[in-house]
């Protein structure tokens, strides 16, 4: 079903601030398919959500859905947002952020994306570090883990998922090509030294906690705003199933 394929693509679009798929956050209001034209209704927790993140997500929606071979045209419809008109016109017209907001922006969103990708990196790493620490691993054992060990350090359930998610973001950043390289590194690839392990862990913990809190806040606000009694998270329709985000207590 073409709708399912579209949802499969949308499941690959994340909120850059929260590192979670839009389909799990409840941000997709609906999808309609008419021939080769796909319209995606997109909504956010508040009228005043930051325009730059809203633009990033809208542009990513358009890009991902356009990857489907039968799609000729994608129309993104951001709703109930202070710059919805401007963002829809810009994204659907194939404009960059700077072109969409010529008076208000001095550049595009690469820096913003990079900043938040680094936070997501720390989030995923911290979740994994916490798991192995809870299992009783020593700091030396942890710092000794190599990239090539990651697929097998935790073999069951949630732990396995955490290791996979961390490996995926290492790969995304080009930090997984050498299987003998240390697994636990800074976002820029420098290994974490023994002397800085505690401080690094605390920094990662604060980052993870902050993002987790923000995600809970955003999910809750969205649910309140759209008064939905139905299940907020769309059923997982993607081909390669991804678990719901681990480590999110309610």
């Amino acid at each position, binding site marked *: 079903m073409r709708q399912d394929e579209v949802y499969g693509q949308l499941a690959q679009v994340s909120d850059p601030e929260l590192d979670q798929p839009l389909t799990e956050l409840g941000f997709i209001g609906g999808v309609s398919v008419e021939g080769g034209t796909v319209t995606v209704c997109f909504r956010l927790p508040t009228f005043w959500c930051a325009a*730059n993140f809203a633009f990033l997500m809208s542009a990513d929606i358009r890009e991902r859905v356009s990857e489907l071979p039968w799609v000729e045209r994608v129309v993104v419809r951001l709703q109930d947002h*202070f710059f919805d008109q401007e963002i829809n016109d810009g994204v659907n017209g194939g404009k960059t952020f700077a072109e969409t907001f010529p008076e208000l922006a*001095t550049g595009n969103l690469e820096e*913003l994306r990079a900043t938040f990708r680094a936070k997501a990196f720390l989030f995923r790493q911290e979740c994994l570090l916490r798991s192995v620490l809870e299992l009783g691993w020593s700091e030396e054992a942890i710092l000794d883990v190599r990239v090539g060990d990651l697929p097998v350090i935790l073999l069951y359930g949630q732990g396995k998922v955490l290791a996979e998610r961390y490996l995926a973001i290492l790969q995304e950043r080009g930090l997984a090509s050498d299987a003998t390289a240390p697994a636990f590194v800074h976002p820029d690839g420098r290994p974490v030294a023994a002397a800085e392990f505690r401080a690094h862990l605390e*920094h990662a913990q*604060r980052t993870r906690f*902050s993002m987790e809190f923000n995600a809970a806040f955003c999910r*809750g606000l969205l649910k309140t705003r759209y008064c939905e009694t139905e299940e907020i998270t769309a059923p997982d329709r993607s081909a390669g199933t991804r678990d719901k985000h681990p480590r999110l207590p309610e």
Partner: protein
Amino acid sequence: MFKTADGAEIFIIDGHTHLWDASPENCLNKYGTGFIDCFHGYQKFLSPPEYVWERPVFCKYGPEKYVKDVFVKGYVDVGIFQPTYLKEFYKNGFNTTEQNAYLKERHPDRFILNGSWDPRDGEAGLDYLTSLVKRYAIKGVKLYTAEWKGSSRGWKLTDPWAMRYLEKCQQLGVKNIHVHKGPTIWPLNKDAFEVHDVDEAATDFTELNFIVEHCGLPRLEDYCWIAAQESNVYGGLAVVMPFIYSRPRYFAEVMANLLKWVGADKLLFASDYAIWEPKWIIDKFMDFQMPQDLKEEFGVDLTLEVKRKILGENAAHLYGIDIGQHMKKLANDAIAKAA
């Protein structure tokens, strides 16, 4: 004032309150409607159901309701008015210093009236700041970096004009700078909530106190780092406090982080009335116990002494209030008599 079961009396300063007018008559455009709807969403999301208001009252509740909710029901002794102007969205402003002054004039010992400034007002704005000090003897300002002005969508504390205003504040004795970051900033491609300008400002102006509202959420981790380094950076707890009802575990984790990194002496209770009512927040806060695992992991606790500091002593220190003397003043004022 809150009285514990053992008879201890806790003096309470609500660090962030408003007397706003977002009635349809005062709304200029969709931005104004969207703004108040956003606030109402926060109320609906985090309040116990019996404390959710109908929209018309929420848009404009008036001074009598403020007094009843905050002082009579709400245990609060002194409310700090933190103005939010938004004259691009509301004809007379959302809640300006002048609008808030109505209640300050009627109950002077019950309120701390703060002013506001916008560095994009240039020289004229510096004159306005001086006039606020002359007229209202303000000791603090609330700054909203996301405020729109003409075609501008926001500013930073490190902008050259902002630095001039901070110097002026230092000269005039306006010591308490409450900083509120919002969703728009110039340029729009930057993160609007980024808190590092507070770090720079706090380093450059050591005589001023920088109170970061809602502890820099959604950049809590960066705020904690900055507040740990800078002795003149404080945290306002509006937006954090209401999680105590619907997400008590998150509330506990936030408080554990804040107590560890920012410290019990630098956190200020606030309800952000009328987004949330102080009564239910304070009831729950006084009952609240820090979970054992967090006490151990972070080495902190929410003792009665810590709660006392957060609820009133820290703000009293910033605003030069002698709690003992002030409690005597309020014991028989018009509001105490009416309660």
